[in-house]
């Protein structure tokens, strides 16, 4: 499919932009942060997004979803990035992919409708390392009869605090498998983290925790698909974050006066801003390409997801440090929003692999280095 937006996609972007501005503006993030919310997101606004079809819109129609594809989910994620919207869209999208691809018919029928209507937030626990490393899996699944129990530790669980359900990877007889764990399960300990971006992030400890196996076959394809989607959605979110912060910065360059001139008239700053504009323009194509590749079932979809995550992680970091610098002193205060974008860009960049991780992955798997 062409790397241009269809009319439907343009309409989706417009409506998403309006909805995020109304239902999840940056002010809402501040209120949640300062109000001591443990969830760090607002379930009411999550319902509003679900009513508008924004939660896991990529789930296929045959599975009861809207079948709008990864592209729609990505365009929504990009708009969410623009207002730093704190809604559990990413975690539910990842969980929905896992259930849709690895779950049994019964599990799909039970869970997917609740994901899509916003009544169930599921957190997926894959990570066990300090840095993203999907190859590392030590959590053990023990079987006795039809019952499974899990033992191990998980890190960087997105929206893991207060989740209605957990999807957890573990080794079953030495083979990676996925399991469903309920929040009240015995031996499950959820430790809330306090991350820089004021989001919901947790570590899990599992000690003989009862679990239900997700499907019964090989889950490696489902895991790979969930990682690809999650990476492409994070890249799209990072694009929205970087875009919005860049626009705020350009606006500031046009308004701030020093030496009797607007600072945006200084060529030293103009060239730095113009270079970021150029890189953001390239990034738009890269992000859309990754989403389209997923929807087309391309053999290269996974590599395009890595390309987009690598490219956007580095670019968002570069845009945000320039955004803070060009704002000067006020840029490092909590009074304005730039710092919030700066922090979220860092966190979103780390999740599911930063530029270093994906560069290394592509070096090995695509470039043969």
């Amino acid at each position, binding site marked *: 499919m*062409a*790397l*241009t937006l269809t009319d439907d996609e343009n309409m989706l972007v417009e409506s998403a932009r309006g909805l995020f501005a109304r239902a999840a503006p940056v002010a809402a993030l501040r209120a949640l942060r300062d109000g001591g919310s443990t969830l760090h997101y607002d379930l009411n606004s999550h319902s509003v997004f679900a009513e508008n079809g924004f939660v896991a819109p990529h789930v296929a129609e045959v599975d009861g979803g809207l079948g709008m594809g990864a592209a729609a989910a990505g365009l929504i994620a990009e708009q969410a990035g623009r207002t730093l919207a704190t809604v559990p869209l990413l975690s539910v999208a990842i969980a929905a992919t896992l259930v849709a691809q690895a779950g049994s018919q019964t599990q799909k029928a039970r869970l997917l409708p609740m994901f899509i209507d916003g009544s169930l937030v599921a957190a997926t626990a894959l990570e066990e390392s300090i840095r993203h490393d999907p190859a590392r899996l030590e959590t053990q699944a023990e079987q006795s009869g039809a019952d499974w129990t899990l033992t191990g530790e998980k890190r960087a669980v997105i929206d893991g605090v207060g989740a209605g359900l957990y999807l957890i990877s573990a080794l079953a007889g030495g083979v990676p498998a996925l399991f469903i764990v309920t929040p009240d399960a015995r031996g499950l300990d959820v430790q809330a983290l306090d991350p820089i971006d004021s989001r919901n992030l947790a570590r899990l400890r599992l000690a003989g925790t009862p679990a239900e196996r997700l499907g019964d076959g090989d889950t490696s394809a489902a895991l790979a698909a969930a990682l690809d989607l999650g990476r492409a959605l994070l890249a799209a979110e990072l694009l929205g974050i970087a875009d919005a912060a860049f626009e705020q910065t*350009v606006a500031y*360059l*046009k308004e701030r006066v020093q030496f009797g*001139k*607007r600072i*945006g*008239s200084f*060529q030293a*700053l*103009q*060239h730095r*801003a*113009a*270079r970021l*504009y*150029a*890189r953001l*323009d*390239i*990034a*738009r*194509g*890269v992000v*859309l*390409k990754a989403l389209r590749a997923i929807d087309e079932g391309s053999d290269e979809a996974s590599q395009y997801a890595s*390309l987009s995550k*690598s*490219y956007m992680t580095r670019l968002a970091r570069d845009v945000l440090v320039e955004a803070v610098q060009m704002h000067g002193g006020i840029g490092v205060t909590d009074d304005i929003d730039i710092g919030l974008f700066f922090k979220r860009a860092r966190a979103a960049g780390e999740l599911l692999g930063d530029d270093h991780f994906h*560069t*290394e992955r*592509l*070096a090995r798997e*695509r*470039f*043969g*280095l």
Partner: protein
Amino acid sequence: METALKLDNDSDFRAEVRAWLDANCPSGARNVLQTSESSFWGGRRPVYPSADQKLWFERMAARGWTVPDWPEQYGGGGLSKQQTNILQQEMRRIAAASPLQSLGIWMLGPALMKFGTEEQKLRHLPDIARGRIRWAQGYSEPNAGSDLASIQTRGEDMGDHFLVNGSKIWTTNGDKCDMIFALVRTEPEAPKHLGISFLLIDMDDPDVTTKPIRLIAGDSPFTQTFFDNVKVPMANVIGERGRGWDVTKYLLGHERQMIGSALSNTAPETVSDIALRLLGKDGLAREPGLRQAVAIHEIENWAIGVAVERMQDQGKARTLSPHTPSVMKLLGTENNYRRTELVMALGGEDYLDQASHAAHGWLHAPSNCIAGGSNEIQLNILAKRALELPED
């Protein structure tokens, strides 16, 4: 002359094109590594790289397929955008050489279509399509590089003609060209941008002379071109008198997009391929910094390749941003320079050889960052037009 194929059905058209190409593209016009020397550039004194390429050019020109999407009355093939795409795809499929390379096709033709009178179009476009005239372009001057609008070459109004005096620099293959389209100051009283006209000048005039410019790579693909009392008919002004800047801005957009995007995918071997061929995986493992640099370059190069794909899609959908040429020029040429630098590093002592292809490529790469409006000019353009940052 054969008439152009006018079939409504794309798959019929593709089949026809395929059969015609199979029958008419000689083997010597296929799988040619396209360099300046191995290409046909047309002109009054044509030099054909091979007999097969001569035949190939003549057959393509007879159908108007040197410029497939130009109207037939101007020497084109009269094909739709879609048919042109099919022809290009089918040519790529058999690795057919471009039958005619030409600044007339890429630059002057589009400007004439937009700004020329009907008489000018009928006079010049068929000559471009048939490769009868080899065109040069004349913008920069020794004292007007980035500050292009300060050109001093002047054309004095003598009633029926302009008397042109001055000099242009960076004329590509100026010694081999027949005519030049040039920016000349014709309205000395007007403000700097408004006093310039876009003139067509015959280089066979004995009062037009050229002098080669030797580059750091050792070759001389450019000349300085001198005009001493050259008479240029009034009819040779393209667009309005004094509004040559508008024509130039339009042309430079074309050129920038071409420079930036043409560089991204023309290399026959990727940097990874070169790294693996020269050093192997083990060699790279011993130099993790170099391996990392190769990987980072590959990612940037890949991203720019995606941007070119997107640009083409936007072109088809008519949603291309006017700022894209500057973006592609800036990032495409920088990426290309880094590529040549990495290749030099990979080749070490071997590539220090003057005669090496790599050294030649590296020594030419900086010129892409300068030509067509230096990259600093592109940043100025983006700052002012895309971001609308203040002048104060």
